[in-house]
């Protein structure tokens, strides 16, 4: 800790960053942003996607992504004027005095080299430690960050380590040279809630122990509340509000901050009244579903088995929430119901009638009645087709509507999902994430289905935007009486929208029942773990969890 005794602070003044298209005009993406971080303090940068968080974080290292340029301002990191440094001077700073922990650790590790080689690389580049010393220090850091097998994990390749572990390895890489300033760029966004907790706990411990000065970028207010001392809220590249965590959480002044706050504690959208048994036959029911991927073995089961004896039932206008960690088989279940992945055992009934397992044996009418809305609106809309083409296709395909009827219905659909009619002639690439997700939903609605399978429809969206989509879903359900199977890994969202919940782990049903009852009194340890891992919007929550679980840092 060579710089531990120096005083001073990190100061950013009137930072301006522009993006320029090839031969095109420049657009400013960060406008005159300024803030100060005292030594040993962690500042959180929070804001919607595209608000300029990463851009500012990178600018701290004098770095601008290809196509961007820093156009003005000053950055003072404990006495060093970063923006005035020569290229060589900048290289001397990066990875040495200022370190960066990227959003996606999986992408930030070079797949072709061992982890250790990459972790100690910065020490070798800056000549701060010999290879042996760096290796020893790295191993100590691995242990400190609660990584398993700290002595050997460095010999592995990135693909041989889990996402949560990689994120911590990236932190070890950043901390190796005892930097003055550490930048965390959404280090837990890509992780499961349960994994996120582990990573947060180890980060928090490291920050405390070392008195790290840091910038923590996130869009999750609850996460930020655990780690940061102060919060800066960004909006369209401008600083909206900055203040201490307590104050921001309890008394935000900027409307956007208030929106953020509201989204972090989702409202209960469904009353308990819908949940009770009306005696009506279920519109969709699945029993004993066993399914997976790969060629079928001699026992008729696929080689990679994912789902084991899963079943559920769903009534008209009801919402079933399915929750589980990544890889637990949630999407696979939705695919089995939709017929994309044929079930090896068990059956799916629609209005009591068993459905053929394979897609090509289902008739068009059956296909129409069950629609699936996929997680990622970015990839699920054909970028080469216009919105009108995308929405009119099911109208022509299922309802054989003529051109003018289609156009009329298209406008209705756009109204239904609260989009301006003018988007009809655009392509998906010209829409925002929330708008795309609405189109995605509208396409399902176009079929006039009885059941919509929503696979993580809000996971890729900002919390604020996601909330709006949830509202829309509930409204549509009231209007059209559709039933939803709602898949999510976010317990808050599930709690807010579903009548009943089913918890999946390793392809098996852990627990199922009416939402309120189940969440109020979970029977299974796994459900409890899930519940306790959802970050809460209060400082000190992380410490409580840690104490509760007795995790040693």
């Amino acid at each position, binding site marked *: 800790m060579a710089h531990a005794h120096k005083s001073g602070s990190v100061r950013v003044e009137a930072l301006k960053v522009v993006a320029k*298209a*090839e*031969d*095109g005009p420049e*657009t400013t993406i960060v406008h005159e942003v300024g803030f100060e971080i005292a030594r040993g303090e962690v500042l959180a940068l929070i804001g*919607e996607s*595209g608000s300029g968080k990463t851009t500012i974080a990178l600018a701290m290292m004098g770095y601008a992504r290809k196509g961007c340029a820093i156009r003005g301002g000053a950055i003072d990191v404990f006495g060093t004027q970063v923006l005035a440094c020569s290229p060589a001077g900048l290289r001397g700073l990066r990875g040495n005095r200022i370190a960066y922990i990227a959003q996606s650790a999986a992408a930030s590790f070079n797949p072709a080299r061992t982890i250790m080689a990459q972790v100690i690389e910065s020490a070798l580049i800056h000549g701060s430690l010999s290879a042996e010393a760096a290796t020893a220090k790295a191993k100590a850091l691995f242990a400190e960050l609660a990584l398993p097998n700290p002595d050997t994990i460095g010999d592995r390749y990135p693909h041989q380590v889990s996402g949560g572990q990689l994120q911590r390895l990236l932190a070890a890489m950043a901390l190796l040279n005892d930097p003055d300033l550490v930048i965390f760029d959404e280090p837990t966004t890509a992780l499961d809630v349960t994994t996120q907790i582990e990573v947060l706990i180890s980060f928090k411990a490291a920050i405390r122990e070392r008195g790290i000065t840091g910038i923590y970028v996130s869009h999750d207010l609850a996460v930020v509340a655990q780690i940061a001392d102060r919060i800066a809220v960004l909006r*369209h590249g401008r600083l909206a509000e900055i203040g201490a965590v307590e104050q921001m959480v309890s008394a935000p002044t900027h409307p956007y901050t208030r929106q953020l706050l509201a989204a972090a504690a989702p409202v209960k959208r469904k009353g308990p009244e819908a949940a009770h048994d009306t005696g009506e036959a279920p519109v969709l029911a699945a029993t004993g579903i066993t399914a997976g991927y790969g060629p079928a073995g001699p026992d008729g089961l696929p080689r990679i088995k994912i789902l084991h004896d899963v079943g559920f039932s769903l009534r008209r206008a009801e919402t079933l929430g399915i929750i589980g960690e990544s890889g637990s088989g949630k999407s696979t279940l939705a695919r089995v119901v*939709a*017929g*994309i992945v044929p079930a090896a055992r068990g059956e799916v009934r629609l209005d009591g009638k068993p459905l053929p397992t394979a*897609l090509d044996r*289902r008739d*068009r009418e059956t*296909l129409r009645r069950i629609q*699936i809305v*996929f997680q*990622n609106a970015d*990839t*699920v*809309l*054909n*970028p*080469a*087709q216009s919105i009108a083409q995308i929405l009119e*296709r*099911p109208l022509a*395909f*299922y309802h054989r509507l003529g051109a003018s009827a289609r156009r009329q219905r298209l406008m209705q659909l756009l109204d239904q999902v609260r989009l301006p009619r003018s*988007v009809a002639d*655009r*392509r998906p*690439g*010209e*829409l*925002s*994430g*929330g*708008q795309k997700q609405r189109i995605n939903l509208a*396409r399902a609605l176009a*079929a006039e289905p009885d059941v919509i399978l929503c696979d993580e429809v809000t996971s890729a969206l*900002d919390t*604020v*935007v996601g909330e*709006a989509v949830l509202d829309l879903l509930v409204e549509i359900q009231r209007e059209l009486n559709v039933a939803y199977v709602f898949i999510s890994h976010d317990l808050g969202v599930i709690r807010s929208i579903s009548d009943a919940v089913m918890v999946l782990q390793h392809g098996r049903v852990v627990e199922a029942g009416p939402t309120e009852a189940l969440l109020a009194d979970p029977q299974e340890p796994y459900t409890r773990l899930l519940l306790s891992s959802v970050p809460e919007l209060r400082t000190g929550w992380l410490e409580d969890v840690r104490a509760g679980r007795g995790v040693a840092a």
Partner: protein
Amino acid sequence: MSETVTDIAPAASRLRLRVSPAAAIGAAIVLTGIVLAVFGQALSPYDAGAIVDVDVFGPISKAYPLGTDYLGRDMLSRILLGARYTVGIAALATALACTAGIGLGLFAAVVGGWTDSILSRLLDALTSIPSKMLALVLIAGLGSSLPILVLTMAFIYVPGCYRITRALAVNIAAEDFVLAAKARGEGRGYIMLREVMPNMVGPLATDFGLRFVFVVLLLSSLSFLGLGVQPPYADWGSLVRENIAGLSYGAPAVVMPAVAIAFLTIGVNLLVDNLPGRARAGGR
């Protein structure tokens, strides 16, 4: 919240359509090539086959702006006539190769499984025979006529086009929007043509351009081996070839058609390399 994004987006797409100067030059050259191919004969000052001068390999002069050839024919007229064969044959062969290659590639990618493996192996096997050798055997077997030339060259370049299409289409076919179409119950034809195909237009246009260049060059190689376009017709490659004796004294008769070929291929390359906002594909 989303309005701002919406406002920026169309501006961004307008930016993407900005044409770089290199692409503009390329496009101008390609356009000239096409115009010459269509109207070349009408523009030529002399009959391309007529011996107009006793002097062979004549220099550039007022009467013969690009000199005369080895028999004393007007070179400008011959190059104008040659444009039809070079541009025409190459465009036709490339179009045929791409149509077949794209069709097969899409089919293999969308159907997958054994069909894909067998098609890929078969076409791989074809690639393993050097193109000039394959052309040699085919033309020796079928005789050299314009249709045969076009078909032969199309045939030679089908595997390359197939390969690129398949590689692109396999990725696209794995995209979620294709899965969504399948879940809707769409047939293969619709998926191939309406879902997958429109997403490959950019890279395929690039590939088309490169393949066009290869065909032009293969055509001139074949002329060297005496298998190309047969007189009295002459593509630019055979013009170079038949006048090569003039190279020793730098006769325009040999230089000019070579310059024409170089111009055309560089033009096409400039165009495809600088296509606005489109992914470029590798491969040959």
